[in-house]
């Protein structure tokens, strides 16, 4: 509860600072995924993420983003994943926009301390422009009975000859009920320089043969400020093997 209050305080305070950065860059949407701080050895996965946004501004509506990734654990504490990120603008076709390498590090054993800690490191490179992003985030998760609270807080450095080099901060959070393995409802919140969004999510796990698993997440993120799209639908499917 205290963590929830702190998140809500952050929402309110950061909402005021948004006024200093009122100009939203074209097609920016900070809705992503809330990462948990856990790594399993011998794990491999294929991942597909889809984001679709609508907005009253026709230039920011009917935009589809897709992200395909392959990841594998390097050891029992480190997981690495390579992504291809594509985007489809209104009236256009799906185009490959960027490549991304991501590393997730489990810092503490699950349940050893009152909260579980991890680290996320991402390096993204645009395909057609000289723009790169290096980001790192702290991943924190804690269980309260049947509820799980997860917080990702990070800093991103954007650099290249086609962009003003700058630091940006971002935060995402999830509050989820462990209802049953195949269906866990929750709420997610996303914040960055321009984005403030919150909305319901559903997640779950479907078991296949042996250690094969399908993990899925879907949600609808609604805006808390004027520079966030009116609706962002998100879907994630991971095939773990």
């Amino acid at each position: 509860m205290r963590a929830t209050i702190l998140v809500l305080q952050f929402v309110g305070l950061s909402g005021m600072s948004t006024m200093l950065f009122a100009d939203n860059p074209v097609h920016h949407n900070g809705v992503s995924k809330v990462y948990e701080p856990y790594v399993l050895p011998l794990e491999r996965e294929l991942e597909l993420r889809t984001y679709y946004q609508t907005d009253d501004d026709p230039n920011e509506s009917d935009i589809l983003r897709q992200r395909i990734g392959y990841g594998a654990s390097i050891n029992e504490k480190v997981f690495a994943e390579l992504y291809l990120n594509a985007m489809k603008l209104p009236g256009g076709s799906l185009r490959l926009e960027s490549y991304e390498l991501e590393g997730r590090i489990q810092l503490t054993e699950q349940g050893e301390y009152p909260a579980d800690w991890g680290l996320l490191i991402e390096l993204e490179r645009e395909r057609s422009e000289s723009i790169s992003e290096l980001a790192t985030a702290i991943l924190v998760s804690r269980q309260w009975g049947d509820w799980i609270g997860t917080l990702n807080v990070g800093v991103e450095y954007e650099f290249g000859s086609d962009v003003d080099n700058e630091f940006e901060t971002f935060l995402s959070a999830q509050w989820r009920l462990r209802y049953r393995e195949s269906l866990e409802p929750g709420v997610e919140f996303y914040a960055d320089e321009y984005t403030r969004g919150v909305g319901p999510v559903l997640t779950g796990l479907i078991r296949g043969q042996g250690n094969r698993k399908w993990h899925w997440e879907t949600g609808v993120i609604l805006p808390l400020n004027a520079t966030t799209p009116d609706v962002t639908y998100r879907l994630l499917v991971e095939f773990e093997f």
Partner: protein
Amino acid sequence: MRSPQQVATISSRISRVTAMLMLFLIATDVVAQTPEFEIEIREHLFYPSELRIPAGQKIKLIIRNLDATPEEFESYELNREKVIVGNSQGIVFIGPLKAGEYPFFGEFNPKTAQGKVIVE
């Protein structure tokens, strides 16, 4: 380039996030002394298959995999999954839990590797 005012704002936000993380940590409990229990995996079975632990107390479970093949200790009820490579051991922290039975299984051999934690 950012103006000095914008840089100050970003710096203020980073400080706020850091303070929030520290408060999140402080808001959590103090780690107490943790009793240890052991389970062995042999020929794709858990020994013992029933583990009795005290209610309301965190425990440290050491899982020794004596098989040459990996096994995954998994339990949705315990909210734990841990892969233990062949001929090695893994540590799983469990609880504090309410009294009751919490089943677990070996994900790589789910038909044979089954057990439960009995909290009393």
